[in-house]
């Protein structure tokens, strides 16, 4: 009898509370995003798809030194050097295999010229494996400059010790 009374009181007093919870949630803002239409802002140091930086006058920063390829733990970077019309060294071929890349950011850290960065983009699915070989031309497109605190420190050190920022 006691148990029955307990069950009845639970039904009358406790069950509506549960219903109230679900009802209240109708008026709350959804936590999910309307994804392809709205996108979540990525963290400033998010490591997404790579891009190559240029100098302000438009010449490429990358000199094809090969340090990024050496630093790459996934062996995803391939490059071949050439000379430009001023006789300066630059990359003829610069390819990153995005299927191999693990987005660790070591290339970004290794780069002495502040040429390669990992950007904000994270949507690069495709039907074709070959399209994941990411070429120099694709990487050189203008991109909002990434604010990397480490790079800022490096730049400051260079200024202090008289290493010129321009080429």
């Amino acid at each position, binding site marked *: 009898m006691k148990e029955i009374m307990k069950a009845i009181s639970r039904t009358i007093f406790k069950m509506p509370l*549960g*219903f109230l919870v*679900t009802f209240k*949630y*109708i008026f709350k803002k*959804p*936590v*999910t995003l*309307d994804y392809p239409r709205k996108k979540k802002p990525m963290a400033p140091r998010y490591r997404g798809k790579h891009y190559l930086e240029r100098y302000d006058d438009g010449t490429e920063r990358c000199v094809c030194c090969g340090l990024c390829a050496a630093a790459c733990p996934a062996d995803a970077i391939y490059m071949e050097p050439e000379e430009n019309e001023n006789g300066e060294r630059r990359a003829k071929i610069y390819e990153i295999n995005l299927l191999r890349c693990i987005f660790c950011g070591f290339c970004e850290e290794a780069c002495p010229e502040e040429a390669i960065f990992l950007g904000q983009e994270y949507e690069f699915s495709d039907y074709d494996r070959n399209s994941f070989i990411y070429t120099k031309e694709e990487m050189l497109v203008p991109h909002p400059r990434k604010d990397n605190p480490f790079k800022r420190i490096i730049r400051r050190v260079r200024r202090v010790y008289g290493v010129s920022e321009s080429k």
Partner: protein
Amino acid sequence: MLEVILISSVKVIVVVVVLLTGCAYATYMERKVLAFMQHRIGPNYAGPFGLLQPIADAIKLIFKEDIVPDNVERLTYTLAPMISFVPAVLTFAVVPFSSKFTLFGHEITGVISDLNIGILFVFAVTSLGVYGILLGGWSAGSKYSLLGGLRASAQMISYELSYGLSIVGVIIIANTLSMVELVEQQSTIGSWFIWKQPLGFLLYITCAVAETNRSPFDLPEAESELVGGYHTEYSSMRFAQFFIGEYGNMLAVSAVAATLFFGGWQGPLLPPVVWFLIKVFCFMFLYIWLRATLPRFRYDQLMNFGWKVLFPLAIFNTLATGLWVLWLSDVIFGG
């Protein structure tokens, strides 16, 4: 004579079209409300606020391949979805949706057929729906389907009794089986039968949810354990028929609940049809609310609840109402 036939056929067509549209948009409403209750957005791609989603779903289902597995019982496999679909539509033949109104100089009653045994008809017909589920589950030749069908039949037998008894109280008080008369007796909010039969209403709603195999009594379907239960092996329009049957049954049960306990189309200011639709809508919301709040019963809990709680309560309610009407009201109010 011709006029009567014409008016009736127009009414039938209107009711069926509204019902099928209602089924389609019940799915939309369910997905949307459930999404809000779970902090999600819900369908919002087809049309503004996803309002065309039911139409997109319907088109998709029509164009899907109709897969018939090898080891099915052809005849019952084909018949089962229809059996579960037809009773849902049939129920609306006796549900009054409006008062009498005049249109183009003709006086039209707000019900397709004013059957003098309306409620009995409703309960007879809705009980047939389980055969569709049972046969569908059995004929598909799959373990999941069979278990789903088995559960459906066991659940139906357990809850049908309380379901039938839950409305006896209302019938005793109203002294009629005709749905139209029932509505006419509840002309004001104070005379709604829910005030006279609160226990009967609770029993009715609980059993109705179990009868329509909705959460928390959705054991025959039980997506998380039986894949899809009785409709695991169904695809394309056959599956859609089960789906329409389920939502049609929900609408039918909601309409009957509104008629029996909440005065049907009776209400101030707004036209009767609107009141009726509002009441049905509230019950549909309740269905979804239940689904969002309560977890599924375990099989033994379901049986315990049906036989040890609902059935005794239903008998008690029936007896108490009978005693009240027969003697006590005379003794207390001096007849």
